[in-house]
């Protein structure tokens, strides 16, 4: 049985009249990448900041390492690493100085050059933080989060606002941390990020968790399946023969398949016969569309 490192039960957070979190519950297990995914304003950062002991909950139970967050703030802060949203640090200190600062605060003997190496910052260590690019800054932020030798690392929207290249690089970094056995709590509004990184995901919308499950299971249950669609009559006949399930909609016939291989086979067969089939794989985008009734655009806004 995997060990729970975070337990959240009926977490409520109210800002005046606004209910930011209305009874959120989930668990995070040791060694996994847990993702909280949802549009802006869904309550992701509020949740993370309560877990990081930077914000007081209105009600509910939150346990980290089996300790209630209330009254154990310092102990918990000693054992976690944090990359806050829109992270910033001392602009006129170098990359290395910023990382060493955190290491000193935690009074840990940390191999700073190892951290620099892990994050690909070794050659930039003498550069001032303020002179770095957005992607580089986030990497410094993760390095600072690692400088406390944490058991859990919280990454609040680590790739928001980064270009695709920088995002890919950061994903690789996060994957490497996972390989080293780090527990990672990550928030994002990018479905691709969930697919690329997460073991399990919680979909959050308007302060409520819609579902929490492993990403694999979410995609297979709600991802829309492997499917091929076609509008040409000749194609429809072929699809009816090979498909598991047939659906007709908007003048198109869609056939569902058990596996990617079956889907590909049908797609290639139709293409070879001069037809123009369309093929779709299950995805987190579909999961979100199915469960939340909308999609999230690049800026994190929910589009119904």
């Amino acid at each position: 049985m995997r060990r729970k490192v975070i337990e959240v039960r009926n977490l409520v957070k109210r800002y005046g009249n606004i209910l930011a979190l209305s009874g959120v519950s989930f668990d995070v297990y040791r060694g996994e990448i847990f993702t909280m995914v949802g549009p802006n304003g869904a309550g992701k950062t509020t949740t993370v900041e309560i877990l990081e002991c930077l914000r007081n909950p209105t009600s509910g139970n939150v346990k980290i390492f089996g300790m209630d967050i209330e009254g154990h703030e310092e102990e918990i802060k000693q054992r976690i690493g944090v990359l806050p949203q829109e992270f910033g640090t001392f602009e006129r200190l170098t990359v290395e100085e910023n990382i060493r600062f955190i290491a000193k605060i935690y009074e840990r003997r940390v191999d700073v050059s190892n951290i620099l190496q892990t994050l690909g910052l070794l050659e930039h260590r003498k550069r001032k933080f303020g002179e770095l690019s957005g992607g580089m800054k986030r990497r410094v932020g993760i390095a600072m989060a690692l400088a406390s030798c944490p058991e859990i690392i919280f990454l609040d929207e680590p790739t928001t606002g980064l270009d695709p290249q920088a995002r890919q690089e950061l994903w690789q970094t996060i994957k490497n941390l996972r390989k080293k056995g780090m527990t990672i709590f990550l928030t994002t509004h990018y479905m691709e990020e969930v697919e690329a990184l997460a073991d399990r995901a919680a979909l959050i919308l308007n302060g409520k968790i819609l579902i929490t499950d492993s990403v694999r299971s979410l995609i297979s249950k709600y991802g829309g399946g492997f499917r091929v669609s076609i509008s040409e009559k000749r194609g429809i006949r072929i699809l009816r023969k090979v498909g598991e399930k047939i659906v007709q909609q908007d003048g198109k016939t869609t056939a569902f398949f058990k596996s990617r291989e079956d889907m590909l086979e049908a797609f290639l067969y139709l293409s070879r016969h001069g037809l123009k089939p369309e093929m779709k794989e299950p995805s987190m985008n579909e999961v979100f569309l199915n469960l939340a009734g909308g999609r999230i655009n690049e800026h994190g806004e929910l589009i119904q």
Partner: protein
Amino acid sequence: MKTLHLTVVLFKNWIRSRMGVFFSFLFPVVLLLIFGSVFGGGAGRYSIWVQNRDLENGSPSDLSIAFISAMENSGVFSIKMIPPSVEISSWVKEHIPSFTSYRVLVIPENFGKKAAEKGIKVRGMIILSSLDLIVETYGEYMDENNLRSIQEGKSALENWVTGITPEEATLILYVQEGDASAQVVSSAVQSIVQAFNNSLISAQSVIEVKFTTLSERTLKPADYYVPGYTAAFIMTNGVIGLTSNISEFRRNGILKRVAATPLSKKSWILANLITQVILAFLLTIIMIFLGRLIFGTSGTPDIFFICLVLLGATLFCAIGITMGGLIKDVEAASAAGNLVAFPMMFLSGAFWPIEIMPEILQTIAKCMPLYYFHQGLRQTLILGNPAGALTSFVVLGALSVVFVLLAVKITKWKEI
């Protein structure tokens, strides 16, 4: 230990900021140098044009020469001569650009002669009144012969003196309307005239004014500026600098980043305080050093002075942390800092004695913490009188406690 690490980081981050260093160190130094040189280097000489029309056979009269050299020796004037023949108003139009201040002293024709005649008459009058006084006081002890000859001599002198009717010897001083220096110039001329009046009647001064101070050392104007500037800029470093710094720390996420570590809120505030206190002492050392080197100011920092710098730096730093914590917007925080700091800087008497200001402003000055700070620094550093700084200690100490508590209360380590 952790607090010290944070202090080192805050200090490093600060010292690498060119703007910060400029406003905290260079700006005060430049101002001290400018103001110290303008007001502190002793009064400059007033240039004055002199036209000497008092000629005897084509050369200036002895009295007029003596008068001009007395003006030169006074150290107040630098004298330039105008030829005796020119007409003043057209000369001024021709030689002085409009809206430029000028002073022209005209010694008129027969000035020496008139003054001498008047002098003789005045002397005669003095002798007459002296004889009156003598007769009145000692007459009853004199024998009749003596008394009679005195009376006869007196009436003869009286007849002669009344016969002399000299014209007034008048000097004419032209100044531009609204010239601020006119009063100083005219008083200086007056005092020279007074000295001449005395010597023309061979009188000796009965009353003399001697400029002196009550302290053993002589004080220079820069002795006023050095503690004043030190206090004012420790204040601005806290109230302007730290207010916007703290606001900036929140905007760029540093506050959240530090709050996420096990460091306590008290450590954060303490580290900021220590950083400011270090800056305050650096600034103080620079100011005292420059004051000594360039303006020859006196004063040695003692333990009371050091304590006051510590208290002042703590107070203004706590005010900065409080304001920076209250005002979320960085630009607004910076504006608020300026709004508090600048009136305080100019009204509290840090740059000039409050006695030259209207009474209402003097009362306002005494409501400002900076007033007690610079007064205290002056008392301890320059006058060596820690007892005189007692009020400063009490006021700054009490306010420090209040504002440090406020800073702790206002600073948000955890969002509600």
